[in-house]
């Protein structure tokens, strides 16, 4: 299906006629519809779902325009979609009417085929026909809300995925073919019996064949149920094992909590000790406090020394001895000038006891200076240590709190109970697998019996030409029915493998964790599994955004494998995705999808993404909501 035009009349907030044409082509296959919140993007999305499938739930609230409903007694809303499928053009049209009592009901749904030459053929069963073109169970993987598509890759949605894949891959066509061929073969057998051309043995063989066929159908259904049950059990087992692993983690957390608690006690004791050291350092910090006074005293001493008011280092006794002996300090006799200088010096020298006191004071001042430096260093070290310890204590307390919370929130279940549950699931899984194998063997045995019966039937000669024809028709119907089932089985296995490969490749292109994720698996029951570098089973730990990327990859994978002409219509495609992921998607998706319709807010596509998308945009619209009229109009972006 390729979308061509959508026409709205008095639908939701789109008063009057509004029309959108969708882009489709090799290069320009993207249509971008931009609107602010509440502008009517979801209305467009809902209109597509409603016109094709009558899914009013996709459009919340009334469908008929409220303003029109207020003016007209029997107000109507209509949506018309022109689309193309396998070279043929169709027009789907649905009309909703609002009765005077205020209730709404569907008035009309039609599907017309436009033939060459302008002839229009009305298709008698439009719902069924639309369902064949794009099955309802498959369309939600082509028309989807980007923010909810992650559900596709959630555990428990395998049945939906399986149904969608069956529809998209035409497996249902093969299933129907096998079913109808069986019915035709049964009817042929009945005709053979009625013409009386069957021998007793042939009739017996045919009855046996039908019985075996019935047995086999029952066994195949049972096998499907068993495989589903096994899949469910595997999930539950995996979840229980995961909880048990958490229990193992519990012991680690408890051990860490104990260690943290010990560390905290140690740090607190050390902190107390540091406080004592600090107090001691503070009490001995007099020189540090008096550092200013010491400095001033030293300056005064220096000044006095310079002025000669304090001893300059020559003692009074020494000068007196030199004058008395008439000798210089170097041993020569003093001449008059030298004697006069020495006598002057003697006059300025202070008495010895004063000199001693001054010298002692100078020594004391220098000592105080050295002591102040030591005390300063000790104080600084004590303060630093105490600060470090305070930070360590705060960190340790925080970690202890985190561990307490973890112990309270993550490990509330009983280990023994979980272990019992695990054993129970384990046993059930084993039983289911044993039963599955038994049923598989039953089916193999039924197939063998059928071949045997068919071979016996073939060996019988029909007695008349008519009987021969009937018999041949019967045999061909049986063989073709068997062939249809064989092709179905092999083809679906092959398709699953191809989808898996394609999904894996696309996911790795789109995801940001290209080294972390090593592979995507599509299991036989169409469950998506992701393997990261630590092993399989990482689906449960994917974020919603990652699941969205995985689901998109899966849909794109199916689209690529089938090569079908199907549109991807995505409402709010990038709402919660990172910029880099959006860039990856807008680069990849237009090349994978045949037709892409994006309903976006003004903030979803940034400049970088826009540059990547621009070459593929064939049509672009803006939805303008007028607050004065409460109506939206569709504007074409040139």
């Amino acid at each position: 299906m390729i979308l061509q035009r959508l026409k709205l009349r008095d639908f939701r907030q789109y008063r009057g006629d509004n029309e959108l044409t969708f882009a489709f082509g090799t290069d320009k296959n993207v249509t971008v519809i931009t609107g602010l919140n509440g502008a009517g993007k979801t209305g467009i999305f809902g209109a597509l779902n409603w016109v094709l499938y009558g899914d009013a739930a996709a459009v919340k609230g009334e469908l008929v325009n409220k303003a029109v409903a207020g003016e007209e007694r029997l107000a109507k809303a209509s949506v018309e979609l022109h689309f193309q499928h396998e070279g043929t053009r169709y027009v789907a049209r649905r009309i909703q009417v609002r009765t005077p009592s205020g209730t709404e009901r569907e008035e009309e749904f039609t599907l017309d085929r436009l033939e060459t030459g302008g002839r229009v053929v009305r298709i008698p069963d439009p719902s069924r026909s639309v369902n064949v073109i794009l099955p309802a169970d498959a369309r939600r993987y082509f028309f989807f809300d980007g923010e909810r598509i992650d559900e596709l890759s959630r555990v428990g949605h395998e049945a939906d995925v399986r149904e969608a894949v069956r529809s998209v891959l035409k497996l249902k066509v093969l299933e129907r073919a096998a079913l109808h061929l069986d019915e035709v073969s049964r009817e042929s057998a009945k005709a053979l019996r009625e013409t009386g051309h069957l021998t007793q043995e042939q009739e017996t063989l045919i009855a046996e064949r039908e019985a075996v066929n019935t047995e086999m159908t029952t066994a195949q259904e049972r096998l499907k149920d068993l495989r589903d049950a096994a899949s469910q059990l595997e999930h539950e087992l995996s979840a229980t094992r995961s909880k048990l692993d958490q229990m193992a983690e519990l012991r680690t957390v408890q051990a860490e909590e104990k260690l943290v608690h010990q560390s905290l006690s140690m740090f607190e004791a050390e902190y107390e000790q540091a406080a004592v050291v600090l107090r001691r350092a503070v009490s001995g910090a007099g020189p540090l406090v008096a550092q200013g006074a010491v400095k001033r005293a030293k300056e005064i001493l220096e000044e006095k020394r310079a002025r000669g008011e304090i001893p300059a280092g020559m003692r009074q006794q020494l000068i007196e001895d030199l004058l008395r002996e008439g000798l210089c300090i170097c041993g020569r006799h003093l001449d008059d000038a030298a004697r006069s200088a020495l006598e002057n010096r003697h006059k300025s020298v202070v008495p010895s006891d004063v000199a001693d006191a001054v010298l002692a004071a100078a020594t004391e001042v220098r000592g105080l200076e050295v002591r102040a430096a030591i005390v300063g260093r000790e104080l600084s070290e004590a303060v630093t240590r105490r600060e470090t310890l305070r930070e360590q204590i705060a960190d340790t307390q925080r970690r202890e709190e985190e561990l307490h919370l973890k112990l309270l929130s993550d490990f509330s279940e009983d280990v023994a109970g979980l272990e019992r549950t695990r054993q129970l699931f384990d046993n059930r899984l084993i039983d289911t697998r044993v039963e599955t194998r038994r049923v598989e063997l039953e089916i193999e045995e039924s197939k063998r019996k059928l071949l045997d019966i068919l071979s016996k039937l073939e060996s019988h000669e029909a007695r008349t030409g008519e009987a021969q024809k009937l018999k041949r028709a019967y045999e061909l119907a049986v063989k073709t029915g068997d062939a249809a089932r064989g092709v179905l089985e092999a083809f679906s296995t092959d398709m699953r493998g191809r989808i898996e490969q394609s999904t894996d490749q696309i996911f790795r292109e789109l995801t940001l964790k290209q080294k972390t994720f090593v592979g995507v698996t599509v299991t036989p029951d169409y469950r998506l599994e992701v393997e990261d570098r630590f092993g399989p089973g990482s689906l449960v730990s994917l974020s919603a955004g990652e699941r969205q990327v995985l689901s998109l990859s899966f849909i794109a994978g199916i689209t690529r494998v089938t090569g079908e002409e199907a549109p991807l219509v995505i409402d709010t495609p990038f709402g919660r995705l990172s910029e880099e992921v959006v860039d990856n998607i807008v680069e990849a998706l237009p090349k994978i999808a045949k037709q892409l319709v994006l309903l976006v807010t003004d903030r979803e596509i940034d400049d970088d993404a826009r540059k990547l998308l621009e070459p593929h945009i064939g049509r672009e619209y803006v939805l303008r909501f007028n607050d004065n009229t409460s109506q939206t109009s569709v504007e074409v972006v040139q």
Partner: protein
Amino acid sequence: MGVQDLLSGYLKKLEPDVREILADVILAEQAVIDMDRPRVKEKIREIIDAQVRRGQRV
């Protein structure tokens, strides 16, 4: 290569008469848009009868 081409690959492995019937039946099932179930079965009977006639001529 689309689904149809891939499916054709599987059909090629069948016996000629069965292959021809199944290919036609699949086409009939795919073109089921305008056809109800009894008409599909009637169409299948026609396909098989045509094959029987071809076989008799051979």
